[in-house]
């Protein structure tokens, strides 16, 4: 039976933990709002880029580009987008489960985020590159990642590139997903950032005849790498929004659990205290009775 002092000590320590988790929850929710806003702010760009791509791919006619080339897949690169820090529920576990499905010998990993890189070295997989990205991903960071995988694809080190990332569906729901990045299969409409409904509209709806300068093929050729950069940027934003909301939910649960524990412990403490008092009273009265007789 623990003494009242032990219980008091435990209550205090749980209280401290609850305070920390509550603070982390606040921070994550603020960051989540920021990440969602950032994803929203990029939407006009996505829409516009789609229109340009649609028009350009229509105008270019028969068009070949190294990034569109389909080859037999001997080696595959996987871009693994995880978080840098833990304490965000099952987010990274789910991602790594997807990543572990790839065969060991025919896969190299490109990691964004520390958790992924740690896993790759722990699981003794092949790591090609590691990148970091900030709380609000910068386009320059996405460009660096995208360029490095494009390079690997073009010089034939790998024959396909997949992305494993967490798609932000809602604050309570994030899903780890695998998408093919390279070769570009068919240019799909970039999905609309935050609501993440994954609407994919086939292109070719632009009916206007465009003039191209210096030429449709040139413009499209320059646009494709840019399109990839932007896609990676969007993946990073999705991943960040997911991470923050997953952390917020995890921390909220932790705070709630801590509160429940405190409640239970307080009850136990009071019971114990009362039992002690009763016991003392009994002792005193029985002593008095023994003396009186």
């Amino acid at each position, binding site marked *: 039976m623990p003494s009242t002092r032990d219980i008091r000590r435990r209550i205090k320590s749980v209280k401290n933990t609850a305070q920390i988790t509550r603070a982390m929850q606040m921070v994550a929710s603020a960051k989540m709002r920021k990440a969602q806003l*950032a994803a929203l*702010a*990029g939407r*006009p*760009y996505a829409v*516009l*880029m789609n*229109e*340009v791509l649609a*028009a*350009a791919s229509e*105008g270019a006619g028969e068009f070949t580009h190294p990034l569109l080339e389909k080859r037999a897949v001997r080696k595959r690169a996987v871009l693994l987008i995880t978080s840098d820090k833990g304490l965000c529920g099952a987010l990274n576990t789910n991602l790594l489960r997807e990543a572990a499905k790839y065969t060991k010998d025919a896969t190299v990993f490109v990691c964004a985020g520390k958790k992924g890189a740690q896993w790759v070295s722990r699981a003794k997989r092949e790591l090609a590159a590691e990148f970091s990205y900030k709380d609000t991903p910068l*386009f*320059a960071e996405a*460009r*660096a990642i995208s*360029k*490095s995988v494009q390079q690997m694809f073009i010089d034939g080190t790998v024959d396909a590139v997949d992305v494993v990332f967490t798609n932000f569906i809602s604050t309570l729901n994030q899903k780890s997903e695998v998408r093919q990045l390279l070769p570009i299969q068919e240019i799909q409409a970039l999905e609309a950032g935050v609501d993440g409904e994954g609407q994919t509209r086939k292109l070719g709806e632009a009916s*206007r*005849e*465009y*003039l*191209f*300068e*210096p030429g*449709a093929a040139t*413009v499209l050729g*320059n*646009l494709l790498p*840019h399109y990839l950069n*932007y896609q990676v*940027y969007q993946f990073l934003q999705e991943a960040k929004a997911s991470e923050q909301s997953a952390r917020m939910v995890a921390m909220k649960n932790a705070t709630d659990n801590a509160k429940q524990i405190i409640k239970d412990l307080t009850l136990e403490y009071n019971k114990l205290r009362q039992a002690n008092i009763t016991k003392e009273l009994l002792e005193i009265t029985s002593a008095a009775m023994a003396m009186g007789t």
Partner: protein
Amino acid sequence: MATLKLEIVTPEAKIYSQEVEMVTLPGVDGEMGIYPMHIPLMTQVAAGEITARHGGKDHFLAIGDGFVEITGERVAILTDMAIKADDIDEARAEEARKRAEARLQEKLTDEEQATVQAALVHSLTQLNVKRRRRS
């Protein structure tokens, strides 16, 4: 008088959206002036200065390289950097330029080099636009 809708967007935000009478762009093959009713055109722009005439007055913006979609009633610019001339902070742009130049002296990987190079172009463009406006 007919107007054009000029839209300038970057991955981070929509920088500019306004009805204008005329736009001048730094195309890859030289400057282009766009009036309303222009033939539909798709082209690339280099880093430089955009002039938007609106209400008889010229407004200036610095942009990075990117793509432009032109239709008879709309000019849409996709770029990685855009800033209004009035918003350019000369001291900060100058500082960014110096920092980028200093970084270029160090040993860099290709990717870092490209990033720094891009940052340098951005700050130089901003400085050029700002200085030209003053003189």
